């Protein structure tokens, strides 16, 4: 296997429940430095996650809602600091975590592209060169590019965001559910753009609920279950394991409903 570009070792993040969250001064005075009585326990959305991603790989992350898939991406992107373990990323990361990110509503589309592009490390020259391409890709009319972004439709903002980020030449891409946006023809374009990036030996980590997307791009799948890495294998088996668990859960729910219903009847 080629040398890893993303290396996670024993990653864990904890969120303190009830404590410190929205804790007002009043509470601090009442309870002092002692923990307040309704102190919750620590909650670990992710714990003990270890994996490696090699260059050029495309890895899909599957799992139920709230199992920490997005948190994992944020850890890789470096916008969250793990409480346990470490993640080493070799090379720059292009995060498609939230596409409208960084766009300032007061500024025009052009100014925003310049600003966010530079924030992500594009040189002014590169932005100028690619500007037409970005606007073209985003299907934004020339007459709107100089209007403030607050007048854009949400679709326009997202398209402009994707168009911009997809121009980044960073070797690692993190994609979180963003393929769900846009109409059919735009989706088509996004697919083509991603295909092109993958051909260029770029590494991608994709979080999605769409089996077609996952099967289309990913060779490998990580199945995350209750904050732990349940399976690290090819995408088909990961999806299969996920589907299996989902099925079992639905069965269990049905059963429970049935027994609950029975109980109610008896009570009545």
């Amino acid at each position, binding site marked *: 296997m080629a040398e890893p570009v993303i290396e996670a070792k024993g990653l864990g*993040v904890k*969120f*303190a429940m009830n404590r*410190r*969250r*929205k*804790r*007002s*001064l009043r509470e*601090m005075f009442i309870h002092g430095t002692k923990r307040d009585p309704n102190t919750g326990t620590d909650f670990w959305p992710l714990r003990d996650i270890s994996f490696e991603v090699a260059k050029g790989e495309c890895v899909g992350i599957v799992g139920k809602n709230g199992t920490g898939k997005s948190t994992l991406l*944020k850890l890789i*992107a*470096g*916008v*969250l*600091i793990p*409480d346990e373990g470490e993640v080493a990323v070799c090379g720059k*990361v292009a*995060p498609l*975590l*939230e596409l*409208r*990110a*960084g766009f*300032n509503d*007061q*500024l025009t589309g052009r*100014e925003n592209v310049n*600003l966010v592009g*530079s*924030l*992500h490390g594009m040189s002014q020259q590169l932005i100028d060169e690619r500007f037409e391409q970005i606007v073209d890709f985003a299907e934004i009319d020339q007459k709107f590019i100089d209007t403030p972004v607050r007048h854009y439709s949400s679709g326009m903002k997202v398209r402009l965001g994707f168009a911009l980020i997809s121009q980044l030449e960073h070797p690692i891409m993190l994609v979180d559910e963003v393929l769900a946006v846009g109409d059919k023809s735009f989706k088509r374009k996004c697919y083509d753009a991603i295909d092109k990036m993958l051909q260029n030996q770029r590494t991608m980590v994709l979080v999605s609920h769409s089996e077609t997307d996952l099967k289309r791009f990913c060779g490998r799948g990580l199945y995350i279950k209750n904050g732990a890495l349940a399976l690290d294998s090819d995408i088909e088996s990961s999806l299969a394991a996920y589907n299996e668990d989902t099925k079992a859960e639905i069965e269990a729910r049905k059963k429970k409903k049935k027994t609950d219903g029975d109980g109610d009847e008896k009570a009545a």
Partner: protein
Amino acid sequence: MASRALAVWQNRKVVGLLVRRDLKVKYQQSILGYAWSMLEPLAMAGVYFFVFGLIFNTNRGVPGGDEAPGGYLLFLISGLLPWLWFSAGFSEAPRALITHSKLITTMKVPREIFPFSVVATKFVDYLFTWPVLLVFVFFLGGRTTLEGVFLWLPLAIVVQFAFTLGVTLLLASINVLVRDVERIVRILNRVLFYASAIIIPSTLVLESDTFPEWFKTLYALNPLLGIFKMHHAVWFPADAPDAFILSATIGGAILMLIIGYTTFRRLETSVLKEL
């Protein structure tokens, strides 16, 4: 700390962009634009001059006596303009991280640059007000000294930058976890204004008989006092801070920077989770 400082330096372009963006946004939707940067301090100066200069006759305390070139009005202006830099940064500090939560949660940049850019933006705003100051100096016949231009002015700016940055780092990170900070800041802003000899010459406190010694020491320990005494000293050499005040100011600023930075680093993990 050195490596983080280096990381901020490597991202200086980003800081520049944020500063330029903030200024752009600020001026874009107003007709008068840049003029506001001057109108606000002018209006404030007018009010304070009316109350303190004309009604309370604060003139008597101006360092260098009644005959000092520039008089109370120049004293007022030369303190008020740098104060607006501090106070604008101070009141925006608690929101420095919160307003950029979208950027922070999607992009990996050293988080320090957001508080830093707040201080830098307000500093540029302050530089923009210099023409106003120079107009007043010209018409009021203010005079400066070599010491004033080459020692007090740069020193005042450097120390004020460090102090404001420390405060901003501290407040920005704490306010993400405990939102009460915003309220405290509003009150402190007012208190510090009168406690830092911006419009009331410090001699009126330090050389008065009404206040006990401990109060005067406390008053002199406020790092902002020294900072504004230096700003005044550019035009009123007699207001130059003595050794005690100077060391309290520089020491206080360094201490504030260390406290602010350590707090910022210690809270960073939880701050990122809350954003």
